[in-house]
């Protein structure tokens, strides 16, 4: 009898918790329209384009063209009105870090030779170690880095395709390197296919 009561209690508690979380998830999904805007804002911050808080979508669409190739969405920056990097490509990519999925934004110049910038959109790496990939200083070090033949995140960066890793966060740094290089490969393939189709 006691065991039955225990099982019933747990089942009831499970059900209640699941219902509460389902409700929360629904509310969260509804609110997620906000995430698209946030992505646009993040991209415009990366390009130092100024925008008004309530005109994010408008400003974004005058500066970028959306291009969907396969599963990925690429945003191509227009030459008008005052873009510093016309024809450059910015896109979102993600991959496994040490503990979590790391989501990043990559901006590649029109020649596809170097990075304009990198931004970490979301991660849950070890706070204070791997989590430091979110810090502006680290992200800034990717601006202008060459991606040919590939990008390396190393101790003591010297070459133009090298970026300083975070000490104490070897795994996260290596994962980030893999994510970026994979993304570049994907970008090459997507645009190669597109080129041959034309």
């Amino acid at each position, binding site marked *: 009898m006691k065991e039955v009561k*225990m099982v019933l*209690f*747990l089942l009831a*508690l*499970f059900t209640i918790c699941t219902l509460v979380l389902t409700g929360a998830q629904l509310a969260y999904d509804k609110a997620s329209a906000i995430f698209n805007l946030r992505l646009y804002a993040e991209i415009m911050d990366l390009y130092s384009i100024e925008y008004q808080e309530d005109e994010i979508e408008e400003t974004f669409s005058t500066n970028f063209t959306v291009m969907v190739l396969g599963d990925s969405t690429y945003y191509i920056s227009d030459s008008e009105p005052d873009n510093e990097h016309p024809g450059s490509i910015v896109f979102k990519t993600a991959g496994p870090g040490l503990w979590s999925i790391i989501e990043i934004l990559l901006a590649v110049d029109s020649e596809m030779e170097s990075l304009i910038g990198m931004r*970490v959109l979301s991660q849950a790496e*070890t*706070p204070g170690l791997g989590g430091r990939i979110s810090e502006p200083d680290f992200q800034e070090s990717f601006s202008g880095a060459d991606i040919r033949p590939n990008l390396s995140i190393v101790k003591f960066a010297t070459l133009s395709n090298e970026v300083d890793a975070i000490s104490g966060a070897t795994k996260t740094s290596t994962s980030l390197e893999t994510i970026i290089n994979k993304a570049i490969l994907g970008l090459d393939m997507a645009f190669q296919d597109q080129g041959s189709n034309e």
Partner: protein
Amino acid sequence: MSDNVQLKTPKKGYRLLSGKSWMVFKEGLWHNNPIFGMMLGLCSTLAVTNLMSNALVMSLSVTIVLIVNSIIISSLRNFIPDRIRMIAYMLIISTLVIAIDMVLKIFLPDISKALGAYVALIITNCIIMGRAEAYASNNSIGISSVDALGVGLGYTFSLMIIATFRELVGFGSLFGYQVLPEPLSPMKIFSIPPGAFFTLGVFILIINTIRGHKEDDA
């Protein structure tokens, strides 16, 4: 008021004019401060105290989870079968934390990003489990929530003083505003976990000296 007014002698505390609630509140906030007294939840303390804004959001999240959790568990205390109480606590705590995580992601994206895994890790914060097991599970709703508030604010207060020091010395700023003049270069070590260890240790020493804490001979 002397040092011997502690929860060990609840009757004495009960007779004080300020009432039992005040005693319980002060116990969590100061005499049995979670960081400096009970030494619980140190891992997250080391990690999130690099910036004051991170520490504030983290400690307020923990306080909210702590209070709501105490209220729920103390109201269910007569129904939760003894042998599965830990599982029940875990379920309730996880649900609360996931909800808080979502709220932070939507409304405070930057801080949610900076805190990273630590919001989710509130689930395993010993303070919450500790208060549920030690207090909320056998006290009334009212007094449990006062206890949770006291402990939560004690955690907040501890994190904030550590974060104030670390941000000031490590970044030269307070709440992100530069306060130290440029020529003074910040000591980077205080912005990384090793610096947190030193800071925490020194603060534990200072606070426990002020509290007049005496180690038991046992």
